């Protein structure tokens, strides 16, 4: 008989602010214990929280990026429980009214959508170091108060592979696309909790167990795989699954329920009376939306309009810098020129960037310059071959293509009279090639074109030369 796996993930993302969620101490990782824990972080009597605008701004960016609703009014609530790494005896979080509601991300190249329930702001706890201090644990509060965005998904995943794909997609989003997190998983910047249950297909949801604190994609996969096997095994043996919080042991690859805390779920949430409701204006949200770099996915969508071959579209949207450069170049260019522009972007531009180990955002030739240059090729002012010379000059710092063309006398010879004269000369000087062409060898034609181009020192308009040569040879 079959079993269906149901997985939801809660991802804790440390936001990349300089200071903490409610205090002005530094969030930098790796400091000597308790040197970045100020009075507010160690919860001295009488201290109070003051909210960090940078953290709120990053939460809003996230909400916009996943297409969620930004709750213009959200409330900070206290989650009460006792633990040595929780100095106040409560965590300031958001409960009934989080800042972001809904949203979604896709996995499997857009084929499956994972819905989000919500995302909310909260503060991180400190760290318990269990190294033996004569049988005691040591508490470091440097991390206490670091801003977290907790992202809760709907239980839409059906396998550990999907869970990992979702986690990776979320990672790419928050780290690379909208840059609200530094993505250092070893330092705990991105942590996953997995809610796992199994059921017979068509049955209602089974009891879930929560695997806490998975900080690598490999552990995420292993933990879920073990847990699923364990749950199925338990149920097939006639046992029942009890709701539990579970830890994964990377050494053994097994999950194990934590010591039961019966009262662990009575957090006595209530709105924090030291803080007022968080209100974000429509204007602020708009401001953030405008300042956000267009998402990579949004950019990729735009490439479909340009009808480039798939492999090239893929190349041009490998990352945001490339996509931005390409889109800037294409915008305002006549549609017919786009293919040539695309070739130049992955050709000469890429070559120069590689030489100097730069990405497209640091290209020494701007999209505007490139567009202008290609325009001159297409309108016959300069041959594609000469255009390379112009490009090199621009790369070295010269600005305007027209000025360069003028200065170096690179104007293409498009005067039909001059070209006819040259072609006549070439035909006269190469009777063998003419003979071979007339007897059917097309290659000979190219040789004649080559000779004509040589005679013009590369400045002849190739298309015109072609046309004139064909006419003369025909007649």
């Amino acid at each position, binding site marked *: 008989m079959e079993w269906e796996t149901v997985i939801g993930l809660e991802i804790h993302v440390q936001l990349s602010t300089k200071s903490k969620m409610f205090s002005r101490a530094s969030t930098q990782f790796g400091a000597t214990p308790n040197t970045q824990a100020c009075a507010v972080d160690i919860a001295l009597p009488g201290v109070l929280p003051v909210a960090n605008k940078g953290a709120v701004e990053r939460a809003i960016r996230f909400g916009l990026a996943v297409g969620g609703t930004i709750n213009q009014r959200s409330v900070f609530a206290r989650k009460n429980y006792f633990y040595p790494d929780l100095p106040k005896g409560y965590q300031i979080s958001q409960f009934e009214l989080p800042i972001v509601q809904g949203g979604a991300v896709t996995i499997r190249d857009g084929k499956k959508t994972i819905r989000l329930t919500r995302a909310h702001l909260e503060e991180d706890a400190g760290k318990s170091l269990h190294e033996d201090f004569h049988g*005691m644990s*040591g508490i470091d509060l440097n991390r206490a108060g670091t801003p977290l965005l907790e992202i809760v998904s709907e239980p839409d995943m059906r396998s550990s592979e999907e869970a990992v794909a979702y986690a990776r997609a979320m990672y790419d989003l928050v780290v690379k696309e909208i840059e609200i997190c530094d993505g250092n998983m070893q330092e705990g910047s991105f942590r996953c909790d997995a809610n796992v249950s199994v059921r017979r297909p068509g049955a209602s949801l089974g009891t879930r167990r929560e695997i806490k604190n998975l900080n690598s994609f490999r552990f995420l996969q292993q933990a879920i795989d073990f847990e699923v096997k364990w749950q199925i095994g338990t149920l097939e043996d006639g046992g029942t699954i009890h709701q539990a919080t579970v830890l994964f042991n990377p050494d053994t690859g097994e999950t194990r329920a934590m010591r039961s805390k019966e009262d662990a779920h009575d957090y006595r949430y209530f709105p924090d009376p030291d803080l007022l409701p968080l209100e974000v204006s429509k204007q602020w949200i708009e401001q953030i939306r405008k300042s956000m770099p267009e998402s990579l996915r949004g950019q990729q969508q735009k490439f479909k309009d340009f009808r480039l071959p798939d492999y090239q579209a893929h190349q041009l949207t490998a990352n945001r810098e490339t996509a931005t450069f390409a889109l800037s170049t294409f915008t305002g260019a006549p549609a017919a020129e786009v293919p040539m522009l695309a070739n130049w972007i992955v050709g000469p531009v890429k070559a120069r960037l590689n030489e100097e180990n730069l990405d497209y955002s640091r290209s020494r030739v701007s999209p505007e310059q490139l567009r202008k240059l290609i325009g001159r090729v297409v309108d016959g002012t300069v041959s594609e071959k000469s255009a390379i010379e112009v490009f090199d000059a621009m790369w070295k710092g010269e600005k305007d293509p027209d000025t360069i063309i003028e200065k170096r006398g690179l104007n293409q010879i498009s005067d039909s009279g001059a070209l006819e004269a040259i072609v006549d000369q070439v035909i006269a000087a190469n009777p063998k090639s003419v003979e071979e062409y007339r007897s059917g060898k097309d290659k000979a034609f190219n040789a004649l074109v080559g000779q004509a181009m040589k005679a013009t020192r590369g400045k002849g308009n190739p298309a015109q030369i072609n046309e004139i040569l064909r006419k003369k040879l025909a007649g």
Partner: protein
Amino acid sequence: MSLSLEEVKRIAHLARIEISEAEALQTQGQLNDIFRLIESMRAVDTEGIAPMSHAQDLMLRLREDAVTESDQHRLFQSVAPQVEGGLYLVPKVIE
């Protein structure tokens, strides 16, 4: 509304306050007196009245993201019950 002895003990545990059997009994009596006082409030009709948490209907002030706190751990730890190597020591935390 009146609390059972079991509930008194459960709440004491939630609040991390140790309470002997005798204390629990006495506390139960006192708490129930107080709850009798509170009960009168529950009978009042508050349909349509929004809860009020602050007098002024204001929004939260946000501060710029800047680090202004420096390391004062020596000062702060001078009042700590048990510190070693800059860490606060507590009985071992078992998960």
